[in-house]
């Protein structure tokens, strides 16, 4: 069979079928168009200004490595005038980050970029290993998750940098859109679609220049550019809603390759249709959602790797919650109602949830909407929907050498139900 010529240069032999649109390209043209598309994203969204110092959240994985490589290339090719810095987080788990941090260190040399590794000890005064020592193996995942959400921003702040870029790709964004539809969270859906999060009030902005780049193309780019990255499969199953959305996205891509982009497009359009009143709060009563974009891990974050999470539990918990809500609101309906046996006995009360929000006035989800205001943590000054941010709450508990119980767990705590059970267990043993 005659070799197929590249669809762009028409001279070289096509070796790559673009995952995004099945265009047949030669290696050179693929690399060029991949870079040019990101340049297009950067310029049309006016992501950077000349002289900006940008921290690249670097984990050593494919996404952030490709991001660093492409930004370096574009910064030189188009004279963006950016100062690029690699920023890595060390959770302080012996052995866990060793390989990936080594990769990031090599990247720093390869790309000639300064590297800053910030440790949890430096940020919080506790390494994860110390946390585990203090509270035991159970439940430490939540500490890690809460700490991690702020770590990049706090790290950037330490460096005096106002803009962190992360390697989130189109697959991550599409997955988050479907996930938030499934769990009925329009505010989060709306926020996850914008390329930049954090407004004027935030000290550190976050953006995702790879927002429109397909994961498969990122892998191809890394492969053909022979980039040095640390490939690690996450051993832990994602939270149930995310896992569900992830497999949907994979199936959709198989059926129609453009579907990932089409979902992103839908999400951007839907973000404009979210009514003002909804943007401040989730549909789910008593599940507070903070307005802060920075403290919510929006896309495809990996687990901290120290503790597996239950898969499916989140969906079951939400199902139960929704059924209880509906049950409460249908009591007045003239139908023989039957309360499922045992439900009252096994209610999942949220930790420290105020009684009024629990037994609260009957509220049909989504009908009555209250607004939540965004403030800053009184202890650390970090954006928070509560007086004291979650990280500070946890720290306070740790510093008193016991877990802090009075925490309102946000919906973004994917592990919250697990944590709840574990904390309940802890309370018993501690007593």
């Amino acid at each position, binding site marked *: 069979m005659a070799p197929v010529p590249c669809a762009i240069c028409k001279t070289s032999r096509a070796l790559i079928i673009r995952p995004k649109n099945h265009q047949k390209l030669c290696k050179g043209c693929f690399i060029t168009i991949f870079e040019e598309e990101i340049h297009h994203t950067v310029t049309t*969204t006016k992501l950077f200004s000349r002289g900006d110092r940008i921290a690249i959240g670097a984990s050593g994985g494919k996404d952030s490595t490709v991001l660093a490589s492409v930004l370096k290339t574009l910064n030189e090719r188009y004279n963006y005038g950016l100062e690029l810095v690699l920023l890595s987080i060390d959770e302080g788990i012996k052995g866990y980050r060793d390989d990936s941090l080594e990769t990031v260190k090599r990247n720093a040399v390869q790309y000639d970029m300064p590297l800053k590794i910030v440790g949890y000890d430096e940020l919080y005064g506790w390494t994860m290993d110390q946390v585990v020592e203090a509270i035991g193996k159970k439940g430490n995942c939540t500490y890690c998750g809460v700490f991690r959400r702020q770590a990049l921003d706090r790290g950037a702040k330490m460096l005096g940098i106002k803009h962190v870029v992360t390697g989130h790709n189109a697959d991550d964004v599409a997955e988050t859109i479907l996930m938030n539809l499934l769990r009925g969270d329009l505010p989060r859906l709306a926020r996850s679609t914008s390329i930049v999060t954090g407004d004027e009030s935030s000290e550190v902005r976050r953006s995702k220049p790879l927002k429109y780049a397909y994961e498969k193309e990122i892998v191809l780019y890394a492969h053909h550019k022979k980039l040095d990255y640390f490939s690690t499969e996450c051993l832990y199953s994602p939270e149930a809603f995310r896992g569900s959305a992830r497999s949907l996205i994979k199936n959709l891509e198989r059926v*129609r390759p453009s579907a990932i*982009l089409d979902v992103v497009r*839908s999400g951007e359009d839907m973000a404009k*249709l*979210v009514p003002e009143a909804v943007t401040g709060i989730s*549909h789910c009563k008593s599940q507070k959602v903070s307005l802060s974009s920075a403290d919510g891990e929006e896309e495809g974050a990996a687990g901290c790797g120290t503790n597996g999470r239950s898969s499916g539990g989140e969906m079951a918990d939400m199902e139960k919650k929704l059924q209880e809500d509906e049950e409460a609101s249908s009591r007045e309906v*003239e139908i023989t109602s039957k309360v499922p046996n045992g439900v009252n006995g096994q209610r999942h009360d949220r930790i420290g949830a105020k009684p009024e929000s629990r037994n609260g006035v009957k509220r049909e*989800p989504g009908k009555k909407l209250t607004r939540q205001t965004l403030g800053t943590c009184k202890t650390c000054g970090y954006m928070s929907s509560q007086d004291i941010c979650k990280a500070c709450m946890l720290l306070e508990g740790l510093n008193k050498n016991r877990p802090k119980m009075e925490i309102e767990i946000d919906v973004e705590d994917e592990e919250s139900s697990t944590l709840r059970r574990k904390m309940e267990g802890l309370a018993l043993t501690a007593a």
Partner: protein
Amino acid sequence: MAVVDVAPSDEPLQYFCKSKCFSQYVTTKAIKRMETYRVRGSIAKAARKLLFPLSFGPSSASLLYILDQHLQGQYDRMNRAAYELIVVHIDLNLEAADRKQSSELLDQYKSRFPRHTYSSLGLEDALLLDNIDWTALNMPEPLQNDSKNTGMDKLQQLVGSMPSATSKTDVITTLLTRLLVDVAKRNCCESILFADSTTRLAEKTLTETAKGRGFSLPWQVSDGMSPYGIGFNYPLRDLLKKELVIFSSLTIPPLTDLIILQGPSSHISASSKLTTIDDLMAQYFQSVEENYPSIVANVVRTSSKLQPLSGDETAACGLCGLPVAEGTDGIDGWGGDQNSASRASEQQDGKHKVLCYGCSRSING
């Protein structure tokens, strides 16, 4: 809360024991959504006309049964009814033998529920609509009559020209909606009563999202006036598909003989080339419905909260007819296109026709 929701794992036998209660639950949920069509006051007013698309599936069969009883109740109490149903079956089959079967089945409906007006059309009748931009589909305008080809041939040709299975299904769905709106208008109906269950509306939410039609969700899942100038109502929006399937077997006599069951699994093909996005979502929600029925309902509640953009200049999509905000038509020229040249070149050719993102994707693959 109904028995079924409380214990989804109940044995079918238990359902039968509670069947009366369950049937009443289903009926109440549906009738509650028909509040606006109560008989009011003592002065007789002309009955409001409502179009009732009958697909022969369990949901539309159940809804017809429920509304037939509802109307009977109104006659019994008030000696008049607040509304009348114009039942229409749109035949999607392209084979003559299948069509004969459909018309026989429709006759069975007529004899079981004789009080309503019935009619039947083939989907090819949509090709006669003059408010669709046929040039976008490479089709001749309806008036350019070429006698060689029948409507069915032309429809087959049109569907065959679509680049993928998903696009085929998409264009069929679109033509179906547009034809229904046309039939409703010609029959002076004020609304169309769609028998979509919660499960179906959840499927639709994710299907349209996956097809790039997120912008259209406010008109796809909510009750009220549609952009076509006719009301869209979903009286079964609070019921799960599985509840309706059970309900249809509990009526006396059961509706089973009147129903053509089309499980989503029958569409799922081993080859991804033949699988559609619609199939994927149907299959997905069938499984979610099993264990997490409230999550299905919550998806619909969530997408129903989306509000149409107000104040923006819009133009109707040449195919689906939904309002497209200025500058957001087509699949080119948005952030994800990443090609600055594409939109400019498109606009140069003068007659720039508006297609929404989703329709444009379906036609262009």
